[in-house]
């Protein structure tokens, strides 16, 4: 199992999570917008992430009012922050594994 590839897949997942959150935030005022959600799956090669469109928000139509599109700005903001932090931790894991391998290589050299 390649730890770097695992951590790398977590970085990609975090990136997708940020993309999805910014997409939703950008469309917070768009009428009829269908919210996007990022769903992560664990696979033997790491974490895999897919984007899904939520169904259009149903309900009665009232004249003179716009339907809200189901985007919760606060939840999306938290997602932005969380994505940033999980990207950062995954990057730390990649760097740590890389460093330990570097040490191992040096040890092998000395021996």
């Amino acid at each position: 199992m390649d730890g770097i590839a695992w951590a790398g897949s977590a970085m990609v997942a975090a990136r997708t999570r940020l993309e999805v959150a910014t997409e939703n935030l950008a469309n917070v005022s768009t009428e009829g917008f269908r919210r996007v959600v990022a769903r992560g799956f664990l696979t033997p090669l790491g974490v895999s992430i897919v984007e899904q469109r939520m169904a259009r928000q149903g309900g009665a139509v009232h004249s003179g009012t716009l339907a809200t599109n189901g985007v919760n700005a606060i939840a999306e903001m938290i997602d932005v922050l969380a994505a940033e932090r999980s990207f950062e931790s995954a990057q730390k894991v990649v760097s740590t594994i890389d460093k330990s391998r570097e040490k191992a290589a040096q040890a092998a050299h000395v021996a």
Partner: protein
Amino acid sequence: MDRALFAAASGMAAQQQNLDTIADNLANAGVVGYKGSAQRFAELVAPGERGLGTVALGAHVLFAQGKLARSPGPFDLAIDGPGFFTLVDEHGRHLYTRDGQFARSADGTLRNARDARLEGIRIPSDALSATVMPDGKVRVTFANGTRTIGQIRLAEFPAPDRLRAVDGALFEATRESGKPREIVPGSDNGPKLRFGMLEESNVTIIEAMMQILAAQRAYEANAKGVQAADEMLRIANNLQRG
């Protein structure tokens, strides 16, 4: 990250335009017959349903009825219901408005503050006073009695929200709005004219202030998205150093 950066930036740009529209509404909240606008947004979608952010499609005018208020003007009129007054400006161009602040000019026509005249009505010079009935009939009192000298008709459009705003509360017909259709006020379900009243702007200040707050917060949230995307790019660059 490029996608996140672009989506967040497009959100900021769209909210900026939204704010421009709201500020315009607010600035005209005191203009008689003014109709506020709302910005419309659409999602930018790449092939394969991947979103790329948002785009502001432009402002469209909201023709909701404004509140009617009593007015002391000499010839103030308000439309209670749909329709527009038809005006003719100095170039013979037809303009449409719901601003009914008219005054009698020397030639007997009713003119607005910009000197455009109300089509179809001329008040004789020997008239003592005039009043307008809900069905648009202009009743004029002379020294020897009262007579009806004409009827104010209103214009209606197939698609009024496609009219082009030319100035304040004045509109011009466009190909998309369709040709004006004349309607006679006063029918049971149709518009009625109110003499001695004016229609206030349909912008409510409190609502506009709330929209400003919402636009500002949405702008801020998108700015945070830009920051986060930027920060993640920085972290990714740190991978190189190990």
